[in-house]
């Protein structure tokens, strides 16, 4: 795959998506829908960090959310992934109301339907790349597809095969982040959340990362929520939103 092909491919798919939305009817209309969400951390009930009247993301969209740090980014992502529960308002992901689920149900839901990539510490340091991917698969209910998917994901993310069995601490940061994508995609989640995934990478690796991520996301018909403060990345996305427009407290 030559660099750029992925980009054009994603642009084409994006165009198709916009022109013929019915083709992707298997994706729920609204992947994310927040209504009247107010949230304050348990330790500081007097200091709310989120106040979202209404916010939604359509299925298959690639959304770039930017905002300064401390604007409630991470809290928002934790609400969407079910790591945090919101008592005030309604958080729906893939048509399921997270705020009415039990803790255990939210953990299962996250394992099965949501992929997550952080800025750093995406991998268990003492496991190798394949084991890290296996680990993610072990939490998903569907028993998981065969290892072929892990190999093909790693291959299409250009992680060399000799690195698959090395401890992930021996891999470069760029490679680690690409293994992290494979790990996040192994359960074929409908929603991929990326929290500043490129902030630890240099410019070249940053471009590489996005050029590999976008076609995969498109190929698997995923909704991508990409959070970053680096506006230069926004050109890769169909939809760009400022967190300040979503969260009235930001």
């Amino acid at each position, binding site marked *: 795959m030559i660099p750029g092909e992925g980009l054009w491919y994603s642009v084409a798919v994006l165009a198709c998506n916009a022109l013929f939305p019915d083709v992707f009817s298997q994706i729920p209309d609204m992947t994310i829908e927040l209504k009247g969400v107010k949230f304050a951390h348990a330790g500081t009930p007097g200091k709310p960090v989120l106040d979202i009247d209404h916010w939604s993301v359509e299925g298959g969209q690639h959304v770039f959310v930017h905002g300064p740090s401390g604007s409630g980014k991470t809290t928002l992502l934790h609400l969407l992934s079910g790591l945090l529960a919101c008592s005030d308002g309604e958080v729906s992901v893939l048509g399921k109301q997270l705020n009415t689920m039990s803790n255990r149900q939210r*953990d299962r839901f996250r394992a099965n339907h949501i992929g997550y990539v952080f800025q750093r*510490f995406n991998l*268990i340091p003492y496991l190798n790349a394949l084991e890290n991917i296996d680990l993610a698969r072990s*939490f998903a209910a569907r028993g998981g597809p065969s290892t072929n998917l892990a190999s093909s994901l790693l291959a299409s993310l250009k992680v060399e095969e000799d690195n698959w069995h090395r401890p992930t601490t021996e891999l470069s940061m760029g490679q680690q982040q690409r293994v992290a994508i494979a790990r996040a995609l192994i359960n074929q989640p409908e929603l991929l959340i990326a929290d500043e995934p490129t902030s630890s990478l240099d410019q070249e690796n940053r471009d590489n990362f996005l050029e590999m991520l976008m076609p995969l996301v498109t190929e698997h018909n995923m909704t991508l929520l990409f959070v970053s403060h680096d506006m230069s990345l926004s050109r890769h996305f169909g939809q760009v939103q400022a967190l300040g427009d979503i969260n009235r407290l930001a």
Partner: protein
Amino acid sequence: MFLRIALKSLLNRKGSVIMTLLAIGVAIFVLLGIENIRNQARDSFASTVSGVDLIVGAKTGSLNLLLYSVFRMGAPTDNISWESYQAIASDSNVAWSIPISLGDSHKGYRVVGTTDDYFEYFSYGNKRQLEISDGERFSKTFDVVLGSEVARTLGYSLGREIILAHGVVSTSFNLHDNKPFTVVGILAPTGTPVDQTLHVLLEGIEAMHTDWPQGFGPASSAVGRTPQADELIPESITAFMLGLNSRMLTFRVQREINGFAEEPLLAILPGVALSELWQMVGMFENVLRLISILVLVTSVLGLGAVLLASVRERSNEINLLRVLGAPPYYLFLLVELEALLICLCGTLLGVLGLYLTLLAVEDTLFANFGLHLSPNVFTVEGLFIVLLVFAAALLAAAIPSLRVYNKAKASA
């Protein structure tokens, strides 16, 4: 996958894990080792004498009688007249009797004057008879049969002439050096005080003392005189052991002897006296136990500390596992599993170490202390101890596990 994470996570922290593992291993080693020694010491203690129904001596405490007649410790309070012995030994209920005459020694080892019946009827352990490993039983007045330890420690072999001393200290001045004895037999090791004893005929004891009119030493004129046969009938003995025709008679005969009219006598049941004695030694047993329990507590606390220290450095890992969908209890169990794995390896190490050590020192211990330790560490009690260690380790690991659990719950 769960097990693999735990294993790899431990391997990732080799240094502290190996130290903890060794600590657990040592604790297991000490616990099982002490338990093993304790049990076998008690067994070997209880099997010092068997098949003897009653031990009879002059009126004294039952423990005192047991100590001097069986363990060759302490001093008899008084002797029994030969006539009393004859009267009781010829009772129709008595199957056999072994007279014992104490009071002489050789280089710190006690000399027992007895008869041929000693080899015939005395038994130890599981009704095992004494065996002569070298030579034969005594038949002449100046014959001596050595316990295995006496022969080995002093380096005596058959045909050797030895001098016995009056009294029981190795530096006694009252040597019977005009009456040398000849070694005619050496007993096989028994693991009982028999190993530390020299056995001669009652006649030998009498012969040694024939020319000691005041009991303080030989008259100078009498050196080397061969005693006459009628002088060799003992006037008194120290104690005797009885075998009865039926065990049912034991208490009746005991009562009869305790009420013996001519002389104040005491008859004891060796089994009862042995267990009384062991209860006194039991104090020491409990101290050993306490020490081993403290060793266990220390090592288990060490395990808890190592796991606790790892919690802080693992907060990224905890976050990551949570995001992958691991519920908090998964993380709790992960830390507990790690504790379990450390414990398992430590136990294997400790048990294996103990087994090899016992195997290595088995012969030495038996030869030097007459303590027979079988390297069998896999007993029901041992299993119970191992389970106890595991429970303690899991309990200690519950603190770091709970901390991880709480961290996981609040990781968002």
